[in-house]
């Protein structure tokens, strides 16, 4: 499994891995729906970074996101390192087709599973018609990347305000999601006095959608929402604004 919450007694990585598969599946069956309640409450349209193969497999989720006008971005066809994918271009293409078939238009943005790019990923993305990528978490602002043909914009995704890093790797308490989001926000808000900043918040339904974590996500959004001069944008909204600058 890509991530685990419970290793077997005395270690190892058996197949099938029922507890870790089921722990993740909880997010799609249960966790996502309580996260929707929070995002609907704040009238926030999120970006849905979705594995291409997940669209038909979890059709109610794709439908709920599409009905709400969320932006779909490509996120690999299945959840594995792009460096282990046999044909990366084909993977990108199949994901784009799956999204286009469901939403009526191809995705403009891409995030690699686990942000695992190959040497060629940005080149392929431009060639396959993508307008932005999210894997280069190296700035608080959009950044142009050169490719072998034309350039592509990278939008500032985050490994900091990200529940995988915080909860699964660093093993923080659930409240850390809130504490860190507010610390991040306060600093970026101060930094942005002269020049706009972008702050990403990243959640996974099997993590922040667990009953004991949701409130910290909700509270972070509530606190940030108190500021009137903060915009809650999707990736393409950020991109289209950036292109006018």
């Amino acid at each position, binding site marked *: 499994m890509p991530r685990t*919450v419970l290793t077997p007694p005395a270690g190892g990585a058996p197949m099938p891995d*029922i*507890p870790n598969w089921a722990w993740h599946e*909880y997010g799609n*069956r249960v966790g*996502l729906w309580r996260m929707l309640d929070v995002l609907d409450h704040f009238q926030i349209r999120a970006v849905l970074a979705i594995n291409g193969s997940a669209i038909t497999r979890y059709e109610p989720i794709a439908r709920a996101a599409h009905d709400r006008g969320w932006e779909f971005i490509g996120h690999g066809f299945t959840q594995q390192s792009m460096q282990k994918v046999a044909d990366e271009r084909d993977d990108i293409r199949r994901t784009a087709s799956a999204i286009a078939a469901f939403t009526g238009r191809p995705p403009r943005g891409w995030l690699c599973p686990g942000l695992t790019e190959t040497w060629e990923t940005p080149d392929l993305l431009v060639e396959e018609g993508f307008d932005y990528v999210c894997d280069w978490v190296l700035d608080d602002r959009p950044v142009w990347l050169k490719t072998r043909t034309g350039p592509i914009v990278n939008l500032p995704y985050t490994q900091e305000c990200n529940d995988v890093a915080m909860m699964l790797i660093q093993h923080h308490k*659930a409240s850390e999601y809130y504490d860190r989001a507010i610390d991040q926000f306060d600093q970026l808000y101060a930094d942005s006095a002269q020049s706009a900043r972008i702050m990403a918040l990243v959640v996974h339904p099997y993590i922040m959608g667990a009953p*004991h*974590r949701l*409130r910290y996500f909700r509270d972070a959004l509530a606190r940030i929402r108190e500021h009137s001069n903060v915009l809650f944008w999707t990736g393409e909204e950020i991109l289209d604004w950036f292109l006018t600058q």
Partner: protein
Amino acid sequence: MIPRERCDYSAIIDRPSLKLPNGARLVVWTIVNLEFWSISRAMARQVLPAPTGEVLVPDVPNWSWHEYGMRVGVWRFFDLFARLGIRPTLSINARVCREYRRVARAAREAGWEFMGHAWEQMPIHKVDDQAEMIARSLDTLARFARTRPVGWLGPGLTETYETPDLLAAAGVKYIGDWVYDDEPTEIRTTYGPLITLPYSVELNDIPMMLVQHHESAYFTQRCIDSFERLYREGAERAKIMAIAIHPYISGQPHRIKYLEAVYEHFSRYEGVLHWNGVEILDWYLSARAEP
């Protein structure tokens, strides 16, 4: 069968609401795990890896740490649950009935529900003859507890592709390995349907304390955070919240108070039921049949 073939995906919001008796909101399912760790193999868990990370056999420090649970820690659980009037589900390696008879007897006398948990603590993938081990485990528990267990939890929740089929064939009615929902579900096996009950890897002292390395006090906070959310959701549809504990972890002197505080919190609320696995199973089978 692969897991997806056993159960179709379903979003919880698309299912009819199940109702608990008398308008109750939430079932708390407490599971105490008792294990046998063979000194001749690597320990199932470690609190202190050896200097330079060598594998030790015998692993005296980690074996002793687990043994504390049987000698000392578990009695704190018996005291607590007797005071609360709660009879947890006992997830017990069958070998415990022989090697820690005194502990198993205390659980039987306290009326705890015996649930199958394999023969000893190792991944089920490493068992040579799984069907034979399942039969031996359930027979041993049936003789000791004087009633045949209907529930099963794999060691470390491990299963092979065949495990649900073998368990159904052996007469098991519910399993706890599929921690993928807040409600019971039904899965397919080659011997008929099997019910899954929502055990937990979140409110569970192994991931929390041994993997995630949280401070002892966080156990209370996480259980309360979970309870508050599920209790609220319980107004609309029945919710089940499992708490999974091990005597060598939560039975430690520096942790037991945080476990006690969890139940103290629950006691302030109306509509909270403390049920064991059999009670949840029986309720589910009748509740889902209601129009």
